[in-house]
């Protein structure tokens, strides 16, 4: 684990930078700057506790499995949507370094400022690893904890699933890049504050006190919304069916989802779409099940879709299986089914962002075919 995390950080730098950092030597190591430490890597933290308990995770898995169910095709369960949500909710550090009962970016500063001091009585605080002293190891532990679960921003440039192309030769090569999507990109100070608000709410970040959006947006205070939403689901399930949600029949689960706070169902729906279609580095879309389900190619770099340019014909050289400028070779150009047609006839001529609003004629139309 420790080794892997160190590698994560180093890979986000160029080879040259890594070499240079090595050459700076011990003098730079002694510099008490947390930024250098953040780039360099250092002592490892222990595993970070995930946010949702196993029981809560089971409830989430059961709920998203009703939103995108498994039938003849895989659904949210197989795609690992619950793991995606767990990764999101666990993504910030469980470190209250300044003992203010909040976990914010200020905690990183607190550790940096208190290096070299002893841990305070009654509050482990900045002494993240509990060895009685606040030092660079604690800072590093907090930094690592920040990214340990799943990345907020996954690394780049390449997943390692696609090979390099050779544009001059117009060919695919058999050289694959080193995977880097797992190398979480460190957040800057302002991004940390924003993500603290997203996960723990505006109350934990005084800097957003005069920003109404920090409390109004659907995407903030996610941990509380999940704790409350899961609790409501379980309470309702016990009241109606005397069993945990994960153990009742699918149609009963559907009933429960119509009874609880609709905002939470919308949140679960949005996160289900994210967990189904995100890169697997974020925990969802396991084995790229989601992309296969919807027929999306997913990441294509560094190969891409044009392999080169053929001067004699003045045409780009494309991949036969996935052409850039032509229809898919297997495309049957079928129309939609009658149910989808009925739906689109109404919805596709509707203003989808405004319930009940319709476009005035002549903008509602079905193109004659």
């Amino acid at each position, binding site marked *: 684990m420790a080794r892997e995390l160190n590698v994560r950080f180093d890979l986000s730098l160029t080879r040259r*930078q890594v070499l240079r*950092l090595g050459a700076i030597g011990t003098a730079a190591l002694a510099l008490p700057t947390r930024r250098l430490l953040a780039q360099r890597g250092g002592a490892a933290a222990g595993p970070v506790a995930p946010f949702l308990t196993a029981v809560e995770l089971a409830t989430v898995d059961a709920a998203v499995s009703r939103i995108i169910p498994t039938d003849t*095709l895989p659904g949210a369960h197989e795609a690992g949507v619950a793991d995606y949500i767990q990764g999101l909710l666990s993504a910030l550090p469980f470190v209250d370094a300044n003992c203010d009962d909040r976990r914010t970016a200020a905690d990183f500063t607190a550790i940096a400022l208190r290096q070299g001091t002893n841990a305070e009585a009654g509050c482990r605080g900045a002494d993240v690893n509990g060895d009685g002293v606040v030092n660079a190891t604690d800072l590093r532990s907090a930094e690592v904890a920040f990214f340990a679960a799943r990345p907020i921003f996954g690394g*780049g440039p390449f997943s390692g699933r696609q090979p390099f192309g050779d544009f001059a030769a117009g060919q695919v090569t058999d050289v694959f890049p080193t995977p880097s999507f797992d190398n979480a990109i460190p957040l800057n100070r302002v991004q940390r504050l924003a993500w603290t608000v997203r996960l723990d709410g505006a109350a934990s970040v005084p800097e957003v006190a*005069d920003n109404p959006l920090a409390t109004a947006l659907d995407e903030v205070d996610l941990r509380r919304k999940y704790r409350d939403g899961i609790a409501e689901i379980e309470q309702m399930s016990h009241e109606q069916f005397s069993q945990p949600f994960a153990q009742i029949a699918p149609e009963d689960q559907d009933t429960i989802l119509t009874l609880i706070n609709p905002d939470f169902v919308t949140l679960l729906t949005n996160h289900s779409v994210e967990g189904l279609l*995100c890169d697997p580095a974020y925990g969802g879309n396991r084995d790229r099940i989601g992309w296969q389900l919807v027929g999306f190619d997913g990441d294509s*770099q560094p190969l891409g879709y*044009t392999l080169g340019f053929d001067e004699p014909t003045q045409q780009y050289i494309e991949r036969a299986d996935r052409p850039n400028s032509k229809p898919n070779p297997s495309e049957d150009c079928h129309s939609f089914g009658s149910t989808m047609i009925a739906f689109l006839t*109404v919805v596709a001529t509707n203003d989808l962002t405004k319930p009940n609003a319709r476009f005035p004629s002549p903008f509602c139309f079905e193109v004659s075919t």
Partner: protein
Amino acid sequence: MSLPSAVPNVLGNTALDAPFNVVIIGSGAGGSATAHVLAGAGLKVLVLEAGNNYFPGLDDPDHLPFPLFSNDELKFGVRRMVLQDPVVEPRTFRQSAAETARAHPDVNVLARNVGGTTVHADMKYPRFNEIDFRLASALRDAGRTFDGTSFADWPLTYDELQPFYVMAEDLSGVSGRADGEGADPFASPRSGPYPLPPTAEMYVARTLADGARKKGYHPMHYPGAVNSRPYGGRPACNNCGFCSGFGCPNNSKGSAAVTTLRSALLTGNCQVRFNCFARRLARSGSSITAVEYTDADGAVQSVAADRFILAASAVESARLCLLSDRDGPGLGNSSDQLGRHLLYHFQTTAVGIFKQRLHGERGNSVSNGMSDFRGVTEGGMALRSDVPLGGIIEFGTSSEPMRSNKAFLRPDALAFARLVGLSLKQLLVEGPFTAHIAVLEMQAEDAPQPTNRVQLDPTVRDVYGLPVPMVTYQNHRFERDARTFYQPKMLQILGAAGAQFGFFQPYDPNEPPDSRHVMGGLRMGSDPHTSVCDPFGKFHDFDNLYNADGGVFVTSSGYNPTLTIIALALRAAGHIVAPGQAERVVASHI
């Protein structure tokens, strides 16, 4: 000097320190173009960038490393890695001064990172038309007047800007076709071909081009700063598909970062401090003396320089002038024009749903388009008398399944789907709003109005403790009439291309405009009483303060603005180095 920099939050020559010859605020299209010229001419340049840097080793003289971008919809489209984040940096919006502005998560937010918005743009780089620079006169001559508007001629002509267009295209590596099949007949005369041939056409764009051709229009290869061949030490685009809204993983996109900013850094005369947010300009008489900024750790710093260039985007540059004089009218506002005549292209988006899958995730987002609805004659030298002024049309699609599905499958749509017996899963699998859509997007000119403006919000503050931009904006009938005129024609194109269903993204005047094309607010002109900046972007009220972003635009034209921002910024920087000899100065650094 040792490059690349080993200092956190710094790119370039770390030995440089205050006082600088020039401080540039913003590392996007305009800021980087000025840095390229000024650092190239030997001036000591500091660039402050509010956002993070995802180009480690951008200042490495030996090679340009791959950046941290990737084909990852979540971190770009959903989690806003490169965008201004409303959770910490909100803006407020209202239609008119009679209303109280409300905080809104997307008042035309742009990118916050080294390279600015050119990092996540898909780099559509057309020029403006010849007539755009004298549009007010042309409208007046044609007897077309519009109450409440503030059309004015630009203080320079297309011919004066043309050499800088050429140099901006060369620096950025613009692909396109100047004549023959696939050229834009409405583009104004060029002195030569594009530096690069056109990029590969996407299937969806070919489909829409067929429809347009059937209706008698002139689809063309969209000019773009995307490498259709290896160029500038960067590889050819392989059409990975993650272009609009994404940073480019292999640097084939000619963003400001990998073109002009990198060249500035490699001179050794330029330093970029990123994660550094400019808070206030300090003045003494008619000079700016220093800029205060919040650094990466949240501490407030100050740096002195001989000259200051605002390139933070039209809204943020105007805001900084207001933040720097909170007890007064704002810096540079003796004309009462500061923040006024704010411009956004008026986007009309027609969506077609096709029977076949259009695989919009392959290609450079928009490979083709047409200018027939701009409303000018061939060559862009005169107005057509029979049609309104609209804008260029982009032939687009959906390349982002997460965002498209979330945008279309809202609770009310899903509730209706359930009623007719359709599940969310069926909608995701069949993909009527993702794999099957083609989009026509018109970037229509909006009329300048003095009441459309940027001010400081009286109550809402950002994470830096500063009042946020308050945007007051209302569309004029000038552009609303154009929308009404061109909408049916857009549907006809979709139908001719084979769409089964079609609809428009709604226009809601209560919402901020959809456009990312932000211009005006620091209007340029020859008369200090009616403009903020002079014809070279220098503030009339100051001897050492300049604007080099879209703020100086007088009108919005009907074409994507970035190439024009770069051309004007190059010209402004050349003029700083040697007044009256801008063209010679810039040409010596191409």
